[in-house]
């Protein structure tokens, strides 16, 4: 059995780890709240944007020929935008996104013989791809809480440019989507070409056709709305991934803290046993010694 001193040392070290994990849990909780606030703030904008697109389509702009919505007959070069975190210690969060991306990529390359490029945002994803020697189209750090709509805007323009110039034929985003408040899922969704979202035709009775006046004209508005829509989607994707990362880290750190607590408890019991054993031994030695003198 380990000596008392050794056990004490271990107890202290576990306690220190516990302190760290607890702090990290609190930090993640705070960051998660912040991210959530930003998501909530951006929701009305996204909703209104969708309503306007909806209104436009009800007036019959649907069959407009917009380069961003045009499907290429034989998509060959495909870009996947992978959004991961910069840091680990958050359970399987980054791994899930990476696995998802790699799986999707190999499906496209091996089964369909397409050329797939990966654009990685976030250190974790980048490091992994570098480790398995996967070539990357581009890699940047995840701006995390410094991420502004401006950044999403730039990113969106970059992607739209790649698409419009014919550099790539399709663009996908691999990120973590918030399903409900407590469940997130790594998903891959297509960003470009934009597909008309299903169930768009809601011939609701109470909201019969309102005749809108369009300035300058519906087509012009539609074609300038689409890039904004794409940017908004990207903005949401990065924010949701940020939220999920902090959520995952919080859960991981909570588990670590709980495990540490359990460990301290076990170690304390072992320590007390060792102490008791030592005392018992000493007493029996004294008693034995006294008996020998008699």
């Amino acid at each position, binding site marked *: 059995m380990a000596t008392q001193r050794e056990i004490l040392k271990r107890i202290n070290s576990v306690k220190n780890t516990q302190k760290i994990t607890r702090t990290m849990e609190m930090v993640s909780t705070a960051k998660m709240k912040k991210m959530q606030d930003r998501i909530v703030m951006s929701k009305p904008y996204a909703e209104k944007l969708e309503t306007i697109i909806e209104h436009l389509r009800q007036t019959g702009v649907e069959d407009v020929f917009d380069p961003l919505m045009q499907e290429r007959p034989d998509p060959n070069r495909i870009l996947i935008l992978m959004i991961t975190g910069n840091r680990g210690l958050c359970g399987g969060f980054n791994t899930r996104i990476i696995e998802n991306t790699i799986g999707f990529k190999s499906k496209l390359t091996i089964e369909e013989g397409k050329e797939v490029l990966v654009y990685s945002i976030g250190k974790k994803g980048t490091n992994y791809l570098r480790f398995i020697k996967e070539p990357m189209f581009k890699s940047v750090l995840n701006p995390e809480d410094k991420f502004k*709509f401006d950044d999403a805007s730039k990113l969106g323009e970059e992607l739209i440019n790649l698409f419009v110039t014919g550099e790539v034929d399709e663009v996908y985003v691999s990120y973590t989507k918030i399903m409900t408040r407590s469940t997130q899922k790594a998903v891959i969704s297509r960003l470009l070409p934009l597909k008309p979202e299903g169930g768009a035709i809601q011939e609701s009775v109470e909201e019969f056709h309102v005749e809108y*006046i369009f300035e300058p004209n519906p087509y012009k*508005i539609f074609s300038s709305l689409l890039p904004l829509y794409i940017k908004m989607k990207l903005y949401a994707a990065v924010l949701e991934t940020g939220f999920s990362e902090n959520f995952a880290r919080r859960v991981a750190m909570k588990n670590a803290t709980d495990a540490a607590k359990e460990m301290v408890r076990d170690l304390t019991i072992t320590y007390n046993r060792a102490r008791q054993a030592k005392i018992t031994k000493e007493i029996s030695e004294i008693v034995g010694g006294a008996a020998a003198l008699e």
Partner: protein
Amino acid sequence: MALKLNCNVLTPERQIYEGQIDFAVVQAYDGEMGFLYNHAPLISELGTGEIRLRTGDNTEYFYVDGGFVEIKNNSLIILAQEAAIKQELKADVLEAKIKEISALPRPEGYAERLTIDIELKKLKARLQIAKK
């Protein structure tokens, strides 16, 4: 008075304004556009400039750059790509920035020159609002 518009000014990052107003002027893509009660349903693109929202004698100023405006059933929604409240804009900071950019030598390429000109235009629009 009941003849008021429900107004919402939104950017992707936050909600800048929500409330009831008498009269709104927004910077559309080719000029200013005013809205009063019972305006016909309209969707328009926005330009770079100012938004004025009047309630009684009180007028609030905002800076807007790009986006859309929609009005329907007396509910005015301004979806700006970028926007700021007048109080957030600091005239001296903006002036310094304009000076700094103007002092730089003109770049060669047409595209680069254009970006600088647009940037300057935006800063000047901001400054104009900040000075009101």
